[in-house]
Structure formats: structure tokens, C-alpha cells
């Protein structure tokens, strides 16, 4: 393969399969993407053009301020009147920045998006009325034909927005994957067999963008794995033309639970984190641990936040089925290490996990309810009202701690007794 590719030296389209072109843009000086991602050598916004007998399809566009480069590459290959279809695999602004202008220049082109993309499209284009523009929604196995070319859609939502989809060019075996299999890695050599070592960027991108959506990654892989794939063309980073299948395999590995290899699928994991200033909340945590341990089928882990770091704790939380936080109340608030951990969870999926809080306090004990509210905000379920104990726990109060841990563990394994009808007025 040619080692002479340098897309930064020209503004032409780059053909990488018969009639299939890269028409994207490089952004080598970007150092932070979307606030949350570091991009040590920038990124690229990949857009693609597919020529067929009956017309041309454009797949995704670029960030708005890179439009000029995108249009120059597009114009090097086709006239706007040839464009029959504009396919949007993902509507985030870094891929739709040039869309309004492209629609203006190619008014005959039809727009193809996923069902879930419709409200986002309207929010992006801000039409003055509902009939301001037309689009067609597509889903798995819908196809559009360019005569001798067929583009098939794969409904792959939540990778990493609700709207995301992939598009497969059947005749060439090219998967236009959107952000899936992408990375923020800018290299003028464009192809995975020519660019530098981008393994870190690939895994870092997965860890920050796809990781919260592992279940959806697995669902998408069920659609992607049976495809005959010759190349993967993502919206960021290198085009994966050499041994593309290994990136699919790698995604499956990254999305597979590692805890299930340790404790078995039948067992559930409860992780208890605590901080303690005078040892009272620590004492509570030990008893909660004791109570939960009495229930078969629940593996309990107890961690003092003072002795650990956020990163590994986030890994534990990701695979846990239930989380308990113990915090004293200091000046009307939970303590900072608790908030530090609870504000570091955007990279994992917490939806539906069970949560609970407990803590010792001296005066007013706000921490427990504040932690519960945060957990609800993170889409967790709080099955038991939190446990607050004033200063040093008595023997009876330690028994309450054991009962609290036991109740949470029972809830996890579905052993909770049928409860009587309760009145809303009795709820806290």
C-alpha cells in the first residue's frame, strides 16, 4: 500500500474503494473535545462520498468551521446536482456543522436519518415550520439504492446518542459506523495501516464515549458482526482498512463484564463506600456489611474512600448491582470524597442500579438525603430509606445497620417480602 498519502497537502477527495471517497477535514490543533476529552494530537471529522450509477450519497458532514475544506473535497469529485442522498449517522454538531449549507447547495438531495434523530434535526436546523424541510427515517435493513450501489442501514441507538445508526455499503463491504470504532487521532496518512500508534486514542475514546453504553454496544455488535466487512469508516480517526474485524472483536472485549469472570453470573455485587471522621460512620458501615453478607447470592465489598482513588472505584461501581455510601454530615453536607466519587460517574451506566445511604451525624444529618437525591439524579433506584444515627451508635442502632444491609441485599436478590399497601402521606 502507498505510504505517500498526505491529505493535509491538498483539498481533493481521497478514494479508498471503487467510487468511495473520504471528504473530511483534519483538526490537528484541537486539545480538548466537548469539554470532557483530551485530544493530544487533535482529531478529524470524517465525511464520506459514495458514487453510484444513479447518483451520489454523502455520509455525514464536518464541524461547521471546517466546512470550506469539506466542500472543496466534495467539489473535487462531484457536482451538487448529482447528490441524491445525504445520510446522517449521528447528528452531533461536529458531524452536522456543514449540513445546512450542504442542503442549500444540494436542494434535490434526500435526507436519511434514524427515527430518534428527528427532534434533534429540528433542534439543529431550527425550521420556522414543520414543513420547512423533508427527511426520511430509516431503520435496520432499510436500503437505498444508487443504481449499482446499495446502502443498508443498521439501527444502533445510544452509541453514543439516541440517534446513532450505521450505514453499510453492501457491494464494497464498507461499514460507515459513525462514532463507533472512532477515535480522536489526527493523522494526515488517514488509514490504520499507515498512521502512528493510535491504540491509546482508540481505547481512550471508547472509555469516555462508548463505555456508558456497553449494553447498546453489545446490541449493535449483534448487527455488525455478521456483516462481511472489508473496511470500517468511522467519523473520527483512522479509516480501518487493514484487518478491520479485530476492532469489532476489541469492542466486544471492552464491553464484556470482567466481574462475571470472578463471581459468576448468579451472584450479585454490593459495594459499600464510606468515610468516617470519628469512627462512627465506619462502625455503621461494618454492620451494614455484616447484615448484607448474611444474604446468599450477594457478594459484598467494603471500601474506605480515604484509602483509594477515584478511577478504580469507578471500575467497581460500573459492575456493581448496588451501591451504598456512608458519610458523616459536616457543616450540613456530605464529605468531599463522597461527592468527588459521585461526580466522576459520567463514564459508566448507573441506570437501574440500587442505591442507599447511611451516616452518623452530630447535629442535623443532611448528608444521607443529599446522597440519596444525587443517586436518584443518576437514575439509580433507592429502595430503602437511608439510615441516620446521631453520633455514637448504640447496640440497637447497630442492629438497625445490620437490618439495613440485609434489606438492601434482600432487595437485590428479590427476596423482599410483599409489602402492605402504604399511604403516600406516610412516605418521607
Amino acid at each position: 500500500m502507498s505510504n505517500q498519502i498526505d491529505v493535509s497537502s491538498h483539498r481533493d477527495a481521497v478514494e479508498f474503494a471503487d467510487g468511495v471517497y473520504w471528504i473530511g477535514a483534519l483538526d490537528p490543533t484541537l486539545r480538548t473535545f466537548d469539554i470532557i476529552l483530551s485530544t493530544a494530537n487533535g482529531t478529524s471529522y470524517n465525511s464520506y462520498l459514495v458514487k453510484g450509477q444513479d447518483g451520489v450519497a454523502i455520509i455525514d458532514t464536518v464541524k461547521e468551521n471546517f466546512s470550506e475544506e469539506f466542500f472543496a473535497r466534495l467539489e473535487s469529485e462531484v457536482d451538487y446536482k448529482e447528490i441524491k442522498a445525504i445520510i446522517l449517522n449521528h447528528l452531533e454538531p461536529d458531524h452536522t456543522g456543514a449540513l445546512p449549507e450542504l442542503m442549500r447547495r444540494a436542494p434535490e438531495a434526500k435526507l436519511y436519518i434514524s427515527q430518534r434523530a428527528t427532534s434533534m434535526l429540528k433542534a439543529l436546523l431550527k425550521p420556522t415550520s414543520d414543513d420547512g424541510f423533508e427527511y426520511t427515517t430509516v431503520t435496520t435493513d432499510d436500503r437505498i439504492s444508487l443504481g449499482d450501489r446499495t446502502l443498508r442501514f443498521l439501527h444502533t441507538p445510544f452509541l453514543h446518542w439516541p440517534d446513532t445508526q450505521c450505514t453499510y455499503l453492501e457491494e464494497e463491504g464498507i461499514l460507515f459506523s459513525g462514532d463507533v470504532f472512532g477515535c480522536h487521532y489526527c493523522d494526515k496518512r488517514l488509514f490504520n495501516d499507515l498512521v502512528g500508534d493510535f491504540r491509546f486514542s482508540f481505547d481512550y475514546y471508547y472509555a469516555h464515549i462508548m463505555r456508558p453504553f456497553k449494553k447498546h454496544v453489545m446490541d449493535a455488535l449483534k448487527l455488525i458482526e455478521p456483516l462481511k466487512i472489508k473496511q470500517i469508516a468511522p467519523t473520527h480517526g483512522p479509516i480501518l482498512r487493514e484487518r478491520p474485524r479485530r476492532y469489532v472483536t476489541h469492542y466486544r472485549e471492552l464491553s464484556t463484564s470482567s466481574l462475571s469472570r470472578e463471581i459468576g453470573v448468579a451472584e450479585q455485587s454490593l459495594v459499600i463506600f464510606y468515610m468516617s471522621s470519628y469512627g462512627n460512620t465506619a462502625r455503621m458501615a461494618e454492620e451494614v456489611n455484616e447484615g448484607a453478607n448474611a444474604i446468599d447470592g450477594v457478594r459484598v465489598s467494603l471500601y474506605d474512600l480515604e484509602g483509594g482513588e477515584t478511577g478504580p472505584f469507578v471500575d467497581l461501581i460500573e459492575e456493581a448491582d448496588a451501591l451504598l455510601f456512608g458519610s458523616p454530615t459536616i457543616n450540613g453536607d456530605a464529605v468531599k470524597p463522597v461527592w468527588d466519587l459521585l461526580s466522576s460517574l459520567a463514564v459508566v451506566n448507573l441506570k437501574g442500579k440500587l442505591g442507599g445511604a447511611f451516616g452518623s451525624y452530630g447535629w442535623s444529618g443532611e448528608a444521607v438525603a443529599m446522597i440519596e437525591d444525587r443517586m436518584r439524579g443518576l437514575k439509580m433506584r433507592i429502595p430503602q430509606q437511608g439510615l441516620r444515627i446521631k453520633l455514637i451508635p448504640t447496640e440497637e442502632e447497630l442492629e438497625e445497620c445490620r437490618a439495613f444491609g440485609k434489606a438492601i441485599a434482600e432487595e437485590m436478590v428479590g427476596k423482599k417480602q410483599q409489602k402492605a399497601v402504604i399511604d403516600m402521606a406516610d412516605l418521607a
Partner: protein
Amino acid sequence: MAKAKITFQDIEQTVNVPAGTRVIEVSEKIGAGIIYGCREGDCGTCMMHVEEGWNNLTEPSVLEEKVLKENMAGRHDRLACQAQILGDCSVKPT
């Protein structure tokens, strides 16, 4: 004040509520599995399935209908942040 019973099937819990209560108000307090995003009927996160008593919830608004459609809601699915309880019903997370 008129009362109604709502059952959250996932946690097998029934609650007596004043008629007119939104499902969100009670489901969070009781720790049911319906989860919430925007809490204002726009994102579709809190979609729930109504197993019984479909007619005992307030009618969905035009906006709720639109969000349900966009989120590919099934028959008898509603948004828990919008639906108000008028009579006995039974719901579970979708």
C-alpha cells in the same frame, strides 16, 4: 379528597395516593424502578408500561404523544413524569 391506588409491579408495592398525583411524585419516593431524565416530558427516559387501569390515567397531551412516538413507545406506554393518577392502575418500567 378522592384517592386512588397505584401498583408498581417491579417492586410489588401499592400506594394510596390523592387523585391527580403524577406518577413521578410517588415512584421516586417509593424507590420504584422507573427512571427519570428531564422530568418535563421531553426526553422519553421515564417511559413506563401501564399493565392495568390504562383509562385511569389522564389522557396524554399532544406533546406527550409526540415524544412517545419518537421513542417508539408500545401500546399502553406512557411517560411517568406526565401521567396523573385518576383511579387504580398498575405500572412497570419499560
